[in-house]
């Protein structure tokens, strides 16, 4: 591979549209437009600099508009366009698509956009029913799994195989809630306690409501991915890895250990030329508290079955061994839909710029961002660093 092809690209601008807990989201295109103008302004660029657009699908509107329509709506003129379609994808893949376009010479400054409004459009119950349709229609949906059930099945097996405790699973929610309370845009209020999380309403055993992601009314994210570093606030995309190993949970080789997660993480780290020990933080997609444990184990931060012990004593908190989800993640910030992992990218950029305010981690120079499709079926990891 030539040096030019492998040259890292940069996130020169980032924007995040906040809707707020329970408030109806603006129209889909309005959100996309706000994210676009916000990201370009944040990069200190002009829209005339943009020569590419990558659109992330949203959950209920996978093809609400195609990327050429969005480019036209934004008045971008002649641009390369691409779309990451709906279906078991980790939302982080849009960074990879933008980077690939730059490496291929198709564009040099790519606007990446994502917006979701689904709980506004469908209501909470409608959103849950839509999520249930993620399961295979022929061989899984007849048995009534909720999205939390997929993670509950992993959790029950992890408890069985490794002696992981409900208190350890609760500690993940407690630690990430602490971060959320430092985020002025978090959709939740109030500290959690381990005992309170364990005693909360059971959704799908052994998971309680507080061990599961929020469902938000909407949100959006925008990025400018550029071939050139624009200024000192540019953040570098040092590596990206992705791998898929199954879709139906019945086809997963294991419910607790996922070699394809290791492969995706190793690919990203190797491209970046760094190791786990170099990371100053990680932003993990956290639909349920078992997921950070599985990621810690599968990536190799600890051995199989040791995730529960790893998270005790606040190891995941800012100032701890590995700060995780410094914005509060989907457990305590928001879960707008497909773009949840892109909220993690925004947070990584903010941390690496040293602009995270009360939740700024000490000396944050290198971070890992995780996105997943469905129930750890497909995983994408981005390594981001200060430029």
């Amino acid at each position, binding site marked *: 591979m030539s040096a030019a092809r492998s040259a890292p690209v940069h996130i020169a601008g980032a924007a995040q549209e906040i809707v707020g807990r329970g408030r109806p989201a603006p129209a889909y295109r309005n959100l996309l437009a706000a994210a676009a103008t916000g990201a370009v302004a944040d990069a200190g660029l002009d829209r005339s600099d943009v020569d590419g657009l990558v659109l992330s699908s949203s959950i209920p509107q996978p093809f609400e508009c195609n990327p050429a329509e969005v480019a036209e709506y934004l008045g971008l003129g002649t641009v390369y366009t691409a779309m990451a379609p709906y279906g078991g994808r980790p939302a982080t893949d849009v960074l990879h698509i933008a980077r690939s376009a730059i490496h291929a010479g198709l564009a040099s400054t790519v606007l990446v956009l994502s917006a979701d409004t689904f709980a506004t459009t469908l209501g909470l119950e409608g959103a849950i029913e839509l999520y249930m349709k993620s399961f295979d229609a*022929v061989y899984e949906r007849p048995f*009534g*799994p*909720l999205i939390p059930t997929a993670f509950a099945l992993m959790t029950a*097996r992890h408890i069985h195989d490794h002696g992981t405790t409900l208190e350890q699973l609760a500690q993940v929610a407690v630690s990430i809630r602490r971060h959320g309370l430092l985020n002025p845009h978090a959709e939740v209020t109030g500290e959690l306690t381990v005992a309170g999380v364990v005693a909360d309403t059971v959704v799908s055993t052994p998971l309680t409501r507080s061990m599961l992601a929020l469902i938000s009314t909407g949100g959006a994210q925008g990025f400018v991915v550029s071939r050139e570093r624009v200024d000192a606030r540019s953040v570098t995309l040092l590596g990206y890895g992705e791998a898929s190993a199954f879709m139906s949970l019945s086809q997963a080789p294991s*419910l607790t250990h996922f070699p394809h997660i290791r492969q995706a993480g190793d690919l990203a780290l190797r491209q970046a030329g760094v190791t786990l020990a170099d990371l100053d933080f990680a932003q993990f997609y956290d639909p349920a508290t078992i997921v950070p444990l599985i990621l810690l184990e599968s990536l190799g931060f600890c051995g199989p079955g040791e995730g529960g012990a790893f998270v005790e004593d606040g190891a995941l908190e800012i100032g701890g061994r590995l700060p995780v989800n410094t914005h509060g993640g989907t457990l305590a910030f928001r879960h707008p839909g497909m773009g949840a992992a892109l909220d993690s990218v925004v947070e990584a950029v903010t941390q690496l710029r040293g602009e995270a305010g009360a939740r700024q981690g000490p000396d944050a120079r290198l971070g890992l961002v995780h996105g997943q499709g469905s129930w750890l079926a497909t995983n994408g990891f981005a390594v981001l660093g200060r430029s």
Partner: protein
Amino acid sequence: MSDSGATGTPGAGPAVSRTVDPAADPAADVAAFFWDGCARREFWLQHCTSCDAWQFYPRSLCAHCWAPTGALEWRRPGGGAVLQSFSVVHRGSGAFAEHAPYVVALVRLDEGPVMMSNVVGDVVGDVVGLAIGARLELGFAERAGRVVPVFARAGEPAPGPS
């Protein structure tokens, strides 16, 4: 593996264009075959005569060795299974709201494949006695006019018509 030339394997010569006739292929709709069997309270599982592996869910080829449809036989498995994991769903949504609490499980059939199903016959919500590793037996339950394969703990009365 047999028949690789006919499927246009790279390196095996020029690609072959074929006309597919679903009407002439008895395994064209494997999902319909499977669920039609369930409607008669028969559980049919695919077995590959080429590599001797069982597979669930049904497919138009063997996912283990890529043997074509013709190498796949439908057989009736023994009905025994082991509970791999389970969760009691307390908040059913949509059509499942009225069934909550109910048990969603991943079960490993004695023949090897894993499938999602429900475990019935327990006092769900108080699942004392149901544990990962439990021996299960296949049965059927009727729901909204459809017969679905479900499991009960071995030694309990097999789930029958309901």
